[in-house]
């Protein structure tokens, strides 16, 4: 897991102006979880998981996910996006340690 923060964004090929496309994004992240002992007390661990995901398209925010608990190692998210104009789509992942990981995909029309 040496690539922590590496981001992959998948947008369908052959997008036409006005298409609503499904964007899939994933970040390499270890997900250190909270664990409890037999008495139910939180075992003090340095938990670390993705807690917020935001995306901006053409400089404007299009979606934000707030995660109240850990979801997965290398979590993947998907959302619908209306491709109005060619330009960058930026996805930002923030973890509970304040780590911020950013990836960009270019929306281009065939």
């Amino acid at each position, binding site marked *: *897991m*040496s*690539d922590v923060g590496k981001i*992959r964004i*998948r947008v369908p090929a052959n997008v036409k102006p006005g298409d609503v496309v499904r964007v*899939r*994004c*994933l970040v*390499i992240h270890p997900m250190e979880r909270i664990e409890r002992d037999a008495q139910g007390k939180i075992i003090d661990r340095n938990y670390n998981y993705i807690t917020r995901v935001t995306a901006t398209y053409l400089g404007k925010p299009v979606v934000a996910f707030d995660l109240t608990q850990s979801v997965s190692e*290398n979590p*993947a998210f*998907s959302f619908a996006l209306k491709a109005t104009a060619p330009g960058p789509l930026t996805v930002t992942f923030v973890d509970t340690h304040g780590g911020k990981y950013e990836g960009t995909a270019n929306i281009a029309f065939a």
Partner: protein
Amino acid sequence: MRSVLALPDVRLRRVSLRAVTLAATLAGCALATHDSAPVAPGAWVSRAIPEARGEVRVAADGTRTAVRYKGWTTRDFAAFRTYASDDARPQPPVQKATMPAGVAGDPKKGRALFLDRQKGPCTGCHLVPGADVWPAGNVGPDLSAFADRKLADAYVYQQLWDPRVIYPQTVMPPWGAQRIFTPEELVNLVAYLQTLHGPVPPEADDDRNPFTRRRPTGFGDNLDPTNNPAVIRAEEAQQLWGARGPKGKACADCHPGEPAQAMRGVATRYPRIVAEYGRVMSLEDFLAVHGETTTGRALPSESAANVDVSVMIKMASNGLPVAVDTTSPAARAAIDRGRAAFYRRVGERNHACADCHTPEHGANKFLGGRFLGDVNAGLTRHFPTWRTSQDEIWDMRKRFQWCMTPLGANMLAADAVEYAELELFLTTFDVGKPINAPGIRH
């Protein structure tokens, strides 16, 4: 016979399957060290991780515990025939049986036994009425109106005890002859079956009925890293490619460039006969010995590193047609042995691979909720494959080992010659078809 190692008793209680981990770990400490000299077929020393070697531990009190993967059963099936080429035991003899007289069967108990997942379950292959029958399979006939056939109890009892008396080519296990069900239990089952009268009411849910159930549609693009975690694992394995092992060499020193170029087409030729080792080797088998002899880095079979690097190398051949050697005399002999293994009946249940994976029998039907693959379609070119149900990448050998357990046969070591030859036989059905790894399956 497989080797049996006597080890100190670790007091394995049969609490939960989780206990296996402990056993596997302890066994691992005691069973290390291999020499890497070439060996003749039949005398192969396994390079697999400890839980993948198919070993059985015998405690001081004689308790036998099979060492398998975490979460798998530890029951020892030593009494039953395996795929080992030196296992000369025949399949269990066909047994006639007479129904115990004067015992009244209880249909209620019979129905519970029919559905009992610790036994058959009979519902794995046969459909019977009831919303709690889920998921039923259709490898065997629909028994929803079985009693309308008006068969004699004694005949039904014999069919359950050992159906080979009536149908020599059946895929149904000899439940009584192999002591999986007791005579009393079989009487209860007969009583239950004789209550199944038609007409059968229409299905409330078409998916309950395996004859009308929807076919599985798959899990989307298997090469999309946001969809298939195995792709990410393979990308991470690229770091191993350039990393120097204890002998000061890296894979990239002899195979210059990125693995996608350097290894292009290599996987299309596997499994193949490797003269140096005098045996058929799958890609994973070869990596286990080749990685160690060249770089000094051990890549034992079924270790994460071995599987991940295998996926990476197989991905380098994606889109290229499978081109294993099927013509040389040595390859043909190996394929013949693989074919014999495919049809060999093994285990407590006396099953063969062919029972589930040929269209004459179970292929393209449901075994419980599982859709059975057809050997003719080619079952190897998407391996190693991500298993959504296991959250792991499985190569072909682990898949074989998994099949052994419900069959009631002790598994062989993951890198056993028998498995490699079986995989070679299966791969002959993939010749000319494009490799597409890693797959993604349930």
